[in-house]
């Protein structure tokens, strides 16, 4: 579409490659603990990098493309809803925090499933978790690829297939070669790009709209509901908006891609620093990005496809060369999410299924070959999926977050904080959580005016406690017998 935009995007992708190759050297040097290095960067993350990788992983296509689009349609009420995510900045690290870091090291856990395996020592729990991760995250990932390809398509004017191809090659090469360390280092760069990108577009938009007061009176003139907390048609009820505290606020601790980062940091000093940096960066990006969506409305009225709001407003308010650099932000967000998901799904296959149950005595060299192989095959599969995106995929992406939360939140929290919690409770909680979520999501999406994730989280909570207490006696006996 225009050259300066394409040039700055290309430079951005080139920088990413250089970092990938640089950290690949690191992987090769540390041959002895390949798994820990490839999937976890040897637990050496410092505070700033930890905060950025969490923000970049979490802030996916939804916060950069879908979110501002929804804010454009709904007005300030959607920004209010998006601000529930500020909590993720501190809540994840305070709740999982030190306990998870200490226990994961004791268990030698590299993935969330490792943790479950050591904590509950139960094959059904491990296999059920692996299957949930593979299915839910695979769908989430495929939808992100579609988003990434659309974005490249709208910036460069290439065909969808060509855009998808560029995106896929960049992501795959990168993840296969670099592993976790490469992913978190670029997450950091991408987090910084996202932060300043948000700031620049926000300022540009406010200037283009003639100041905030001016924008507000334009909005009121169009539809007064746009400046209320209730959405453009009054449809955002307080209860519905509040239920997002569960979906995108506190429930986020149960997302494997987030939880795994909570075991990757070096020391408590790093974690403390990440708490502050993370809260600031998440809050600022969420507030800024969604406000941009609202402010864009009087400047560019009548955009039909909400997902086009972000690229269009950027090209509108900024000079082309700057727009190119700044549009790297949403692309960065999508890429870093995809990187992490890809790595996570491949770790579920390699570590949790292959190493646990197929070939526990595999050599380092074999593990390495399998890791690269699985990551490549997964990448190609996702590409094939994304080539002709089925409608179902988009639904599955939204669905995936709630599903993972319903499955993992209580086995994780009780596993950490309740000594009595046992495998029966965990298994019951996962089965009840996932199945009630599937049923409610399918049949009563807005049950009692709440998001469909709320009730399953309650049910799986009850299931965990009831089954743990019912089987408590039996488990104690068993452990006495064996040891």
């Amino acid at each position, binding site marked *: 579409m225009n050259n300066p935009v394409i040039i700055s995007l290309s430079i951005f992708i080139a920088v990413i490659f250089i970092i990938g190759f640089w950290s690949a050297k690191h992987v090769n040097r540390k041959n002895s603990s390949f798994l820990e290095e490839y999937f976890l960067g040897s637990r050496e993350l410092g505070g700033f990098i930890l905060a950025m990788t969490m923000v970049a992983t979490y802030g996916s296509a939804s916060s950069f493309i879908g979110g501002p689009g929804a804010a454009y349609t709904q007005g300030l009420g959607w920004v209010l809803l998006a601000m529930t995510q500020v909590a993720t900045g501190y*809540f994840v690290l305070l709740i999982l925090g030190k306990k998870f870091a200490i226990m994961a*090291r004791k268990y030698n856990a590299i993935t969330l499933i490792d943790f479950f395996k050591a904590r509950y020592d139960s094959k059904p729990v491990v296999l059920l978790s692996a299957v949930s991760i593979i299915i839910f995250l695979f769908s989430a990932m495929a939808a992100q690829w579609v988003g990434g390809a659309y974005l490249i398509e709208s910036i460069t004017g290439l065909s969808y297939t060509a855009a998808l191809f560029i995106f896929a090659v960049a992501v795959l090469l990168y993840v296969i070669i670099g592993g976790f360390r490469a992913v978190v280092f670029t997450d950091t760069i991408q987090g910084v790009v996202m932060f300043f990108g948000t700031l620049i577009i926000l300022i540009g938009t406010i200037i283009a709209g003639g100041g905030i007061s001016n924008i507000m009176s334009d909005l009121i003139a169009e539809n007064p509901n746009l400046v*209320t907390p209730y959405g453009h048609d009054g449809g955002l009820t307080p209860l519905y908006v509040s239920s997002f505290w569960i979906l995108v606020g506190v429930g986020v601790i149960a997302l494997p891609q987030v939880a795994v980062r909570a075991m990757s940091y070096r020391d408590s000093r790093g974690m403390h620093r990440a708490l502050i940096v993370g809260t600031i960066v998440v809050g600022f990006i969420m507030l800024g990005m969604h406000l941009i969506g609202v402010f864009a409305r009087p400047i560019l009225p009548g955009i039909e496809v909400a997902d086009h709001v972000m690229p269009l407003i950027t090209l509108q308010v900024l000079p082309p060369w700057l727009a190119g650099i700044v549009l790297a932000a949403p692309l960065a967000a999508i890429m870093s999410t995809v990187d992490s998901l890809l790595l996570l799904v491949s770790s579920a296959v390699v570590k949790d299924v292959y190493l646990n149950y197929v070939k526990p005595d595999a050599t380092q060299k074999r593990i390495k070959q399998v890791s690269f192989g699985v990551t490549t095959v997964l990448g190609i599969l996702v590409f094939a999926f994304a080539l002709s995106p089925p409608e179902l995929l988009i639904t599955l992406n939204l669905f995936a977050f709630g599903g993972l939360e319903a499955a993992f939140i209580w086995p994780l929290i009780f596993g950490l904080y309740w000594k009595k919690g046992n495998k029966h409770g965990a298994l019951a909680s996962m089965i009840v959580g996932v199945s009630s979520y599937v049923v409610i999501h399918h049949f009563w999406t807005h049950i009692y005016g709440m998001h469909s994730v709320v009730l399953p989280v309650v049910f799986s909570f009850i299931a965990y406690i009831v089954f743990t207490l019912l089987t408590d006696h039996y488990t104690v006996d068993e452990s006495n017998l064996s040891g």
Partner: protein
Amino acid sequence: MFNKYDIDWNDPRFKVANREARIGVILVLFNFIWWYGFAYGLGSKPVEEYSYIFGLPAWFFYSCVLGFVVMVILVSIVVTFLLKEVPFEDEERSDK
């Protein structure tokens, strides 16, 4: 089978961790009340009666903008004064 991994549930470091988890819950409850109170307390008035701060409706400014700033300040206070540094490694797994 239960003792394959020796987790000492009375590990003094866990006391620190439990306390910090409770702080997390308190912070999130406070955050929610602030967010909800200002948004729906001030925002349910008719639009004509809204007051504005820096051009933004007051409910939005207090709930989302000021609320965010307040949370950043609270988190910084918690980190500086309430969190304790503890070692993560055990003796047997010093360097792998």
